[in-house]
């Protein structure tokens, strides 16, 4: 519960932060809201030699419309997101993260860069087919959500790069839902399901996306369910049938509260509920 010794800097610019990270090498970590990294450090599961705090970097806490979609600064806090109903499922999921104290400090950039499959926003970004912008000393690049999450706590963000923005495409026309199953309100998701449904004029399913929290070492898309539903009717029976395929191919990690089988069962139930809500069925 007491961290190992570390150095700390809080540069006033992005370039300053990038320099500090580069100088710190592999033992340096960027610090955003701190609600993932600091607990790991207190348990001594992580022991970075240098923390580069981004708090003084200007311009990273913002929510702006862009090309019909959204550009959200990396240091935007969960509490900022939850207050913005126009962010749709992002706001809905953000409101379910941990407790209000955590939401007041935790950031979207920190959560995505940490790459914990039990966190809520990675699955939401994956379902939204969003992207992140990262800056390194070599320049800026964009990483699609589908390429971002590589493994447990491992992302495509290279050492020395800093996530600066999150990009979310236009949400108009999509119904949405985030179903999160926990023992206590403040817990990590045992399983979470993000569902997005776009109805065609005739009421059938024009498009659908389903993504899971905590069903594997990364957030996952439920492709079998999506395929089963896409182009077909959105009645309760079709949704129920499609949801039955939700857990196909998943190998969720078992833990104290849930075996892999139980998690797969929860994924099916929650997928059905999320789809019904997103489809307005």
């Amino acid at each position, binding site marked *: 519960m007491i961290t190992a010794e570390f150095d700390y800097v809080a540069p006033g610019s992005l370039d300053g932060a990038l320099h500090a990270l580069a100088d710190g090498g592999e033992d340096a970590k960027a610090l955003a809201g701190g609600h993932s990294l600091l607990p790991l450090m207190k*348990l001594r599961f992580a022991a970075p030699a240098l923390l580069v705090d981004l708090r003084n970097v200007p311009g990273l806490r913002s929510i702006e419309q862009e090309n019909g979609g959204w550009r959200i600064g990396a240091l935007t806090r969960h509490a900022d997101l939850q207050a913005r109903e126009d962010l749709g499922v992002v706001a809905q999921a953000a409101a379910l993260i941990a407790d209000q104290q955590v939401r007041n400090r935790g950031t979207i950039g920190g959560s995505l860069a940490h790459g914990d499959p039990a966190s809520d926003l990675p699955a939401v970004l994956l379902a939204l087919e969003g992207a992140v912008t990262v800056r390194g000393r070599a320049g800026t690049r964009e990483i699609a959500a589908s390429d971002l999450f590589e493994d447990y706590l491992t992302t495509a963000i290279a050492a020395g790069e800093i996530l600066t923005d999150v990009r979310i495409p236009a949400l108009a026309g999509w119904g949405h839902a985030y179903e999160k199953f926990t023992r206590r309100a403040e817990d990590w998701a*045992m399983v979470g399901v993000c569902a997005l449904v776009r109805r065609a004029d005739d009421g059938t399913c024009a498009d659908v996306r389903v993504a899971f929290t905590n069903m594997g070492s990364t957030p996952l898309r439920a492709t079998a369910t999506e395929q089963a539903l896409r182009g077909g009717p959105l009645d309760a029976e079709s949704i129920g049938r499609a949801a039955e395929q939700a857990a196909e191919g998943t190998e969720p990690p078992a833990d104290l509260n849930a075996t892999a089988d139980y998690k797969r069962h929860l994924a099916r139930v929650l997928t059905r509920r999320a789809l019904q809500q997103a489809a307005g069925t």
Partner: protein
Amino acid sequence: MSVTEERTSGGNGFVGRRLKRKEDPRLITGRATYVEDLTLPGTLYAAVVRSPEAHARITSIDASAAAERAGIEAVFTGEDLADMAAPCPMVWVPPGVEVHVPEHWPLARGKVGYVGQAVAVILGGDKYGVVDAAEDVVVEYDALPVVVDPEAALEPGAPVIHEQFGTNKVFEWSLAGGDVDAALAEADVVLERRIVNHRTAGAAIEPRGAMAEWREGRLTLWSSTQIPHIARVILSIQLGISEEKIRVVAPEVGGGFGSKLQVYGEEVLVAWCARKTGKPVKWTATRSDDMLTTHHGRDQIDDVRIGAKRDGTLTGIHVKVIQDCGSYHLIEGPVIPTFTSCVISGAYDFPAVRTDIVGVFTNKFTTDAIRGAGRPEATHLIEVCMDQLADELGMDALELRRKNFITEFPNERPHGFVYDSGNYHGTLDRCLEMLDLEAFRSEQAELRQRGVYRGVGFSTYVEICGLGPSRALGPDGWGMQGGYFESAQVRVLPTGTVMAYTGTSPHGQGLETSFAQIVADRLGLDPEAVEVIHGDTNTGPFGKDTYGSRSLAVGGEAIARAAEKVQDKAKRIVAHKLEAAPEDIEVAEGAFRVKGSPDKSLTLADVATEAYIPGDLPEGMEAGLDEISFYDPTNFVWPFGAHACVTEVDVETGRVEILRWIAVDDCGPAINPMLIEGQVHGGVVHGIGQALFEQIVYDEHGQLVTGSFVDYAVPTAAEIPSFETDRTETRSPTNSLGVKGVGEAGTIAATPAIVNSVIDALRPLGVTYLDMPLTPMRVWNAIQEARR
């Protein structure tokens, strides 16, 4: 004297009122002082090196790298404690019963028996530096076979944790009355159930902590403890320091729930280190330390047999208790299941009762008293089994209860306990009135048609508290090596206000308020003029501290008696001054006045002036106005009540939600009804925690799986319903206040109400029994099992 006059204007009538807690402003505004807030000049911080092995011989300890780090003052291991006078004394020595007590030292000597056992301590001037240094201590272990399951530990061939005993059995003893074998033989139905009451933690928000100072041959220990007075005795024994040279202070204590009814190794260790180094030494537990090494509770397997006639008449109850004690004892652990046996037969008129208890060593941390301490286990098994039996008999579960309620009081039970007073029908009647059972049943049926599963469960509990009568508990009774009286001193100051010293050690109960109310009424004061002093062995008489819902029923009675002694003396002074007879003086409206002549009166301030400037006292009377009382009760007290819990179960996921909680408790006349409600709320939350969320889990290697609040799931406000509470008031004949304890009642009552409720909800699906905790997966699995 104007301030005093203003203060005394309240007069009598404070007992029974919902006064706000005097403690709250400092607690709410963060101005209270906990051990962690205290630091003396030159304080050394202690970090403890703990065993990662559950069962192993220590083959070597190399602390050289740690000792060489900058700022490290000293490193000590178990070998260095050779001058310590005694290991942790376990105070339960029941006559005629063999109890195995292994030597439990603050630092392990030679071997370890649980993960987290302390093997070395590092002292240094920087509280972070000592934690880094602790990581540099290299301890080599020779791992031994581990046994974590108490039944496996009793099997022949199991690894024996303490070789000197040749067995993992800690003790075996029985409490019984009536012929249970005959009672079960003549029963039409014998219900048999195995009920597992799992291990839990106290989980106080303030972890443990202690700071010691050794100065001029005297020791002061500040500790986050419920028992400063007992701690002084035990420190004296363990350290070999004469008792009068030791002062123990419990500053603000942020929750105990029994987990600080203890003298832990670290408390003794910092005291020993302070003497050794001559510098103040402070240790504060992290949450991880606390989960690993603050004693756990429960962890019983109860094999229950209950006999009944076809018409529901109960004939007998026999319970075999297996108590997992962990690998070492602290001060009293093995006695805890004895409290299970006291109320094993609940509120019911069983003619024959028998409890056979076996304690077992396992490679886990010690179990000891956690809120309820043995009685939650009893209530859980009897109240769950009453529902199970009703099912078996095809009877209504409430009708079965009512048919067998004890109705005559005082009532001596077959196993020798005398229930003092009660009205079990009364609390159940009121509970049902608040619930509206008929409306619930019709709603329940209607909702089931729509696939919504709701249930209601009841718990009509009785419990034993107010520890306790020394003759029953003491060396010749159960064998506790101590008395269980309580002390109080009521000191009127020269200006007429009061300092009231209690031997109890409140840590959240609100006794500074309720005790002030008791004193105020007896002395014609406002409670604001009564300062309740506690938690410091250098003030007031020797006390017996706070646990077992004893503070009011024993400590409050002592306060009342001391205040009445003061009142008696004051009356004699007033009578002398006003030329009346002492028996004609009454305390009313803030004054001592002559009955029938209210204009002839003196205030306590006037009396204090006479007492402390003794120019005209009655012949032979000593100066001063300061009285002590030691009250040793003649019986325990027996609170009771009826709780109802309405749940809804999501049968697709197994998730349980509590929709309503109705609690009707009877703890005698209220001193402060708001404090009772607070205790009931907190107590029930504790029970909800055990029933739905909390469980200490060790894996098969003896590693603690639930080592933080991420995995050890204490419920939060979001999981808790709004409580509907009420009370009935049945006086206890045991004490003059008529009061019973209420600090543990909610916890003792709660768990079976939830389990019975969930079983009621799932009955149409064929689920007939569930063990706690009712996690979503466990409930879902039970539904699947029932469907097969």
